[in-house]
């Protein structure tokens, strides 16, 4: 007998050691997320994947599935909380979509669209954050960093380097580049690295590739992030 949990009343099989997110993805159930990526160690920081497990809020990307769990995912209350979290991400950084080359292909934006976020609700921080254009092929715009640590994990776990780290707390939290000058050009980063391509927002961009895909053909122009996410993170289907 395979073990099962239920998500929104639907029986979902899992194998021992799987997280709720892994079991859900394998069963083609989308749980909104930004800091989670199936290839890397879960970080559990963005909290978008918060689900109710037997009545308690848990991060689906870190919480292990266990026999008989009753999980609530796609509920009005959770989606409302997720929208609030997304609004907080927007006001904490500087996300000016009309002037960002990631627009249309941005997961932060796509999650916001998916949650029907029409406004920022909170006062905007307009935090002063720098740009690092020193590297010949890769650009960092710290204004758009949401501290998901995907670049940190990709660099360590996939590229075998340690180009990035997160430092500081609260409003002073920032992405660090591991080089003596602190600049990207003096780091080990290569434009072919996974870390250079993993950013869910427009914070880390490959130079000379902007606006090559016209409006109407971008990733999220016609497909919501739930479809795109399941198709890419569970490519074997079934």
């Amino acid at each position, binding site marked *: 007998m395979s073990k099962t949990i239920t998500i929104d009343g639907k029986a979902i099989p899992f194998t021992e050691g799987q997280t709720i997110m892994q079991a859900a993805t394998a069963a083609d159930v989308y749980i909104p997320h930004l800091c989670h990526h199936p290839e890397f160690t879960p970080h559990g920081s963005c909290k978008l994947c918060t689900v109710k497990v037997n009545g308690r809020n848990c991060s689906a990307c870190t919480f292990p599935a266990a026999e008989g769990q009753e999980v609530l995912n796609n509920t009005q209350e959770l989606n409302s909380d997720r929208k609030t979290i997304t609004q907080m991400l927007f006001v904490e950084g500087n996300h000016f*979509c009309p002037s960002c080359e990631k627009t249309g292909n941005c997961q932060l934006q796509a999650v916001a669209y998916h949650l*029907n976020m*029409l406004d920022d609700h909170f006062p905007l921080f307009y935090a002063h954050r720098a740009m690092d254009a020193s590297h010949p092929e890769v650009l960092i715009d710290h204004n758009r960093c949401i501290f998901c640590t995907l670049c940190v994990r990709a660099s360590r776990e996939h590229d075998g380097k340690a180009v990035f780290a997160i430092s500081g707390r609260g409003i002073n939290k920032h992405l660090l580049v591991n080089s003596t000058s602190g600049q990207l050009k003096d780091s080990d980063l290569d434009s072919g690295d996974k870390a250079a391509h993993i950013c869910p927002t427009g914070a880390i961009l490959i130079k000379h590739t902007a606006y090559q895909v016209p*409006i109407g053909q971008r990733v999220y122009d016609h497909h919501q992030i739930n479809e795109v996410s399941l198709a890419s993170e569970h490519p074997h289907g079934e």
Partner: protein
Amino acid sequence: MANKIRVATTSLAGCFGCHMSFLDLDERLLQLAERVEFDRSPITDIEHCGRCDIGLIEGGVCNSENVHTLREFRKQCKILVAVGACAINGGLPAMRNFIPLEECLSEAYLDGIGVENPQIPSDIELPLLLDKVRPLHEVVKIDYYLPGCPPSADVFWKFLTDLLEGKEPQLDYALVHYD
């Protein structure tokens, strides 16, 4: 038709792109005109906002006059709508928020390339600039938001027709864009 819905519109720290997009309603404007009458708006050139059902505001708040206009709209309109990226998060004008105001003025009026007779404008008629450009919801209560840069004519149409039919306005996925 006797009791038409009164609509006022204005552009604060915006580019009038949202108004241009509104005009993209094209022939649907005629249908709208059967139900709607315009109060203060660039379309009518009425200077002050009277009692209105709906106020559509494009642009963020960048100077003292914007604040007065926004408060007048809030006072006079039953439903106040933030239209477009700048009204919602400050938009492109808010990109000056990362540069001290004095530096902005110096670059534009004193030190910039090609500036003749350099002086910072100080005519008493000119509204004072705020230190930062702000979105509307930080100054008054906003009832609805139409995102986009600009929101398409279809967004205006869906929003206004929903309201006119007495429904809660709902923008589905295809109508929600921040760019």
